[in-house]
């Protein structure tokens, strides 16, 4: 008999409560400020030292000093954030939103225009 009362209690409690799940995609969970979503380049700050390429555990970064390019394969990147930590000039940033799905696997190439950088003596 007590099981019946327990069942009625749970039933009435559940009727009064909304669903436990979110109505995705209409309702989305707020992104945590510390979420590791995706890596982005701030190419203006890059000095092409190549530390990120050397330390990346997934081998997804290629830095080319001669051509002044910074290349990331976002589909190989594990978003660990090591490159962001080791970058001496804060040229790589971590964003909280993840990268949107795409139908083609194209690497991201950032090119820095040659010329003196602001606040820096070149040569």
């Amino acid at each position, binding site marked *: 008999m007590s099981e019946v009362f327990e069942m009625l209690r749970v039933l009435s409690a559940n009727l009064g409560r909304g669903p*436990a799940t979110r109505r995705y995609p209409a309702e989305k969970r707020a992104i*945590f400020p*510390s*979420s590791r979503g995706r890596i982005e380049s701030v190419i203006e700050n890059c000095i092409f030292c190549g530390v990120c390429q050397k330390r*990346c*555990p*997934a081998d997804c970064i290629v830095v080319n000093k001669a051509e002044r390019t910074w290349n990331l394969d976002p589909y190989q990147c594990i978003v*660990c954030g090591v490159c962001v930590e080791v970058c001496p000039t804060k040229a790589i940033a971590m964003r909280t939103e993840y990268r949107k799905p795409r139908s083609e696997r194209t690497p991201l190439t950032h090119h820095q225009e040659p010329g003196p950088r602001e606040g820096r003596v070149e040569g």
Partner: protein
Amino acid sequence: MPGQSVIPFGPQHPVFPEPLQLRLVMKEERVLEAVPALGYMHRGLEKLAETKDYAQNVFLMERVCGICSFMHSLCYCQALEDLMGIEVPPRARYLRTIWAELGRLQSHHLWLGLLADAFGFESLFMECWKNREIVMDLCEATTGNRVIISGNAVGGCRRDLEPSVLKEIGRRMDDLERGLDRVAPVFQDDPLIKQRTVGTGIITREEVIRLGAVGPVLRASGVAQDMRQLGYAAYGELDFRPVVETGGDSYSRLMARLGETYQAIDLVRQALRRIPEGEVLPKVKGRPEGEAVSRVEQPRGELLYYVRATGKPQLDRVRVRTPTLSNIPPLVRMLEGCRLSDVPVIALSIDSCVSCTER
């Protein structure tokens, strides 16, 4: 043999989250013998670990397992710290304990849900996984990712937690305990669950010791052995005693894991109360040389890492021994003589993790 038949159980079976095959030699409805077949998930991670430097390997070792990933990086880092003579700061040791116990909480909740699902008890499965989301959210809020949390580095932790975040973990532990209080009596007393677990897959204390079982399988047969007794990370400073059951059947293994889930909540609270101030990641210098062994208690049992280095950034050898490998001989013993209808629940009761077993 006349009157015998062989039923392949797996590699794809609804109760197994990962591929493991058991060839069941049957005489009518009884299992005479179970022959395990492994090797569906081999990825060559140990070999890959020899090509990367020791700091990069932390991220690789995390990917050995998708459920207990933090424990793998912890065990690997401990071996390296031992090799390089690095003293881990006290705050980092406490943070590691908190993350390790959060990992155990999510792993045990996942298993409780899977067990309920194996009975066809859908609402209990959903309730367990709803509670698990609390832990997953905490992992993401504290480290930036739900499962592969990347909290470890050789020498300490990569992130420090603000006092407000630590307080939030404590608050969420209260929510989790309330959620667990709702499902625990069902696991303990429900006649349906008892019918499927009590007295099935019995393995005695002598047999688990002889066959080398580890983790909850070992403790459910009355052996009080847990790697956390070694006192790694901050466990030596916390009030910890292994959860021991004596029945040796599937029900005892369920109760051992349920008890450990409550204990993990308690350990997180203890760690939150005692966590000291200070740095979390000292500067690491030098290169590893020599060999070291490290052991930690994963949700499934004892995890062992052996590391050998010759003074280069790359390691000479990384050897991983995972708890599921140790628990397969006991599983084969448990299945002998059981009914075919009991095989799914017994096979699930060792909480096998095939991806780390085969790496």
